[in-house]
């Protein structure tokens, strides 16, 4: 957190429109495993907020519980943060947003936090079109509790914890968000900053629920593919040592590729993901074609990335409710308390 860092700012660091340097958007030092995808997403968030010239105190970062949900400590040290309870970030953020419509709300969650225990709250935050960016750091497993399969784990994938192939189809959060009527739906990969940073920025600008499903490899526990062929030597070797308490230091996976292209990403365990970026001419405002595109890609085993859908007419929850423009948390007796005279009328009506 910034208050324990030296106040000194290097005079040469470039400043953004609101006078902050990129350093001002950093947080405490991460305690995640070296190479964890979540740290790359944190970096992208820092970059996006810096580029967007967000005033740090005008943003609130809220999360559930998990490795992913810890990340808000590691970025935006000058913003208020709230590490709530497991799976309940959506409701806490909805409440916070009701209290003050003027802040940017950045909700961070994990796939366990969202697709398992948090499923109900996720769906209903989508439905309410709460004005927030909702990032799922999706690693297909429960990192913090040591690698059990999450509900987004691929069919057939083998986790370190269970050692047996998952018998269930993984939940596709992007398809779900689309089906539930989300007004902004995107997917990206933790290591692909060139795609992720603009998506986060777009999400922050979107008046409503902006969902970003971000694939984020867990270097310690997860194996994104279950087919034996993708098991690399590294993985086999890890097994040989048989020490579950041993976590080798890994490097962050980063990559770039063109819009419209496909790209195979080799993960730490040697397994491979096939990412496909939406073409530049993709029209994200066409709901029905977004639907079919997502279904088709799923059927063919590709992971489609990019901004899949956006509703340009999106009305966020305050607009749906007709709340006043002034943040509710700034209203005081004058606006809120009807006073004794009104009360006398009510009393009279009760006689």
């Amino acid at each position: 957190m910034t208050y324990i860092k030296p106040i000194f700012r290097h005079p040469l660091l470039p400043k953004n429109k609101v006078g902050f340097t990129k350093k001002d958007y950093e947080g405490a030092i991460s305690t995640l495993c070296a190479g964890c995808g979540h740290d790359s997403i944190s970096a992208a968030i820092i970059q996006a907020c810096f580029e967007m010239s967000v005033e740090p105190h005008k943003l609130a970062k809220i999360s559930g519980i998990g490795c992913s949900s810890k990340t808000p400590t590691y970025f935006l040290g000058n913003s208020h943060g709230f590490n709530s309870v497991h799976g309940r970030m959506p409701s806490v953020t909805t409440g916070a947003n009701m209290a003050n419509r003027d802040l940017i709300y950045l909700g961070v969650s994990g796939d366990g936090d969202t697709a398992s225990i948090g499923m109900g709250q996720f769906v209903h935050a989508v439905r309410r079109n709460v004005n927030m960016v909702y990032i799922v750091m999706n690693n297909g497993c429960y990192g913090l509790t040591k690698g059990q399969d999450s509900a987004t784990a691929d069919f057939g994938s083998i986790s370190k914890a269970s050692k047996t192939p998952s018998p269930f189809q993984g939940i596709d959060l992007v398809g779900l968000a689309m089906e539930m009527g989300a007004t902004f739906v995107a997917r990206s990969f933790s290591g692909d900053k060139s795609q992720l940073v603009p998506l986060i920025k777009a999400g922050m600008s979107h008046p409503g629920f902006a969902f970003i499903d971000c694939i984020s490899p867990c270097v310690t526990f997860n194996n994104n593919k279950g087919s034996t062929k993708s098991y690399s030597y590294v993985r086999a070797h890890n097994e040989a040592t048989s020490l579950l308490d041993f976590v080798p230091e890994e490097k962050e996976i980063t990559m770039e590729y063109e819009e419209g292209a496909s790209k195979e990403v080799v993960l730490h365990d040697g397994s491979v993901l096939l990412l496909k970026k939406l073409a530049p001419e993709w029209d994200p405002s066409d709901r029905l074609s977004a639907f079919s595109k997502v279904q088709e890609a799923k059927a063919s085993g590709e992971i489609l990335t990019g901004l899949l859908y956006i509703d340009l007419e999106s009305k966020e929850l305050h607009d749906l409710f007709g709340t006043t423009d002034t943040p509710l948390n700034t209203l005081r007796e004058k606006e809120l308390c009807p006073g004794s005279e009104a009360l006398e009328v009510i009393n009279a009506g009760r006689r």
Partner: protein
Amino acid sequence: MNTKTINDMVIRFANVNGSGSASANDMFAKSVFRMGIPVSPKNIFPSNIQGLPTWFDVRISEKGYLGRREGIDVLVAVNPATMKKDIESVLPGGYLIYDSSKVLHEDYIREGIHYIGIPMMAMVMEHYSVPRLQQLFKNMVYVGALIALLDMEMEVTRNIVKETFAKKEKLVPPNFQALDLGYNYAKENYDCPINFCVKRADKIGNKIMMEGNAAIGLGAVYGGATVMAWYPITPSTSVAKAFETYCKKLRIDPQTGKKNYAFVQSEDELAAIGMVIGAAWNGARAFTATSGPGVSLMSEFIGLAYFAEIPAVIVNVQRGGPSTGMPTRTQQPDILSSAYASHGDTKHMLLFPSTPAECFEFTAQAFDLADYFQTPVFIMSDLDLGMNEHLSPPLKWDDSRKYNLGKVMSAEDLETKEFGRYLDVDGDGVCYRTIPGTHPTKGSFFTRGTSRDEYAQYSENGQVYVNVVNRISKKWQTAKSHVPAPEFYQKENESKQGIVFFGTTTYAALEAMDILEGHGRKWDAMRVRAFPFNQEVADFIASHEKVFVIEQNKDAQFRSLLINELEVNPKKLEPVLVYDGKPITATAIIDKLMN
């Protein structure tokens, strides 16, 4: 036998739900109230929407005894399904009013009570053509008959009808007609009044009639709540409804027509309390209303609010437990599960209103307490208080009253003072907080449900943890002198025996005390109004040899709370328990007090 009983009776209406009777019955009770006599109507309804038995008991008591009383003086029996049992409830010398459109089956004939037949159905079929109106006006017919039989003032009831249908004037004449049908039939066929009658009195003063839930909803409006998140559950739903209704009237920005509040029906109780916590963390006054099952579902989140020190106001309108229990019956069975909600070492503030006026006042106050102490505060109502109309002092508001938002640092404060979220600057255990958005570079902190140091940094250090929880305990000590003090019913203690009660138990307890005093037996009495218990509560118990604790649950939960928190010898506290789902009666209390 022929002296009339005046202004002291219980009238039972035995109906079927969904038949429109509730509105007619309400008008009857209101008529009594308007005649200046204390009245207490209680609705006993099933957990269903249409076609099952409901009862509406109206106690009329010039002495102001407003608790439930067993034994029916006048029964209006219009539900054949329960008629047999209903008749058993009539006291000797009492009356049965029934629909004589058909001959009464001999099964229903009982000695020692009077039968008054009114051909309700026959009359409405004659006078109204639409079947649904026939059904509706049948109810008004028996009200009309009662007016005659009890010698009440027709004009009073007519006025109520007029007010009720102020916006649908065409409904006034047929309602009048129905009243008259009943009235005239009774007058013409029976000696009016019967042995019970209702005579104008002057025992109401400026009191009002209100449901506790409506008063809570209104209290939240006055208390400055801007965010309500809730999930429907009987018997709390009408709190939400009241809040919304009053907001629609009182909280619309006059310039823009926009809402100065947010009202969110959430997907469940977990989400409701989550929204409350999020909103309160972000500086708004927020609350939810629920009942036992909802509190159970909220308990993980309640622990978060407790430990992360976030205000939250939770209205618990209690009903019969455990589990789904008796969802449409009253109890006070969530004392322990609310006081100690959530895992780990937790304790929560509870407020125990007894009247709508207190529902209103305590709700407003709950927001001050929650903000000041940065902790969940429960308003412990129950079905009886919440969903029945109660005679109450009028609601009061002092226009100079300011919301106490507690220790919140402003941008200016942050420029001049040191900020540590969990620093006990004032030595009372209550720390300063900041609201997100306050200052561009100062005062941000990270909120979490884990152990953390005084500067809100995560810590697994044992001593740091101990400091946090001990400081929270200090806060609890501080709170003892901030919560509403108990109410006493004697200037000074006069007896070695005391009684303790709270919430809706009050009505029967006061009646019992009064009756016993009439018999020369005197108990000192204390009505507890809040947990943590203030010093007065401890003193009262200390200064009596034996204390009876009267409550409406099986396990004597309030008594346990007293024992636990005040280190009282259990031998000293005698439980008086009623837990059958009906409001406790003075008789039950007297039985127990006198052994």
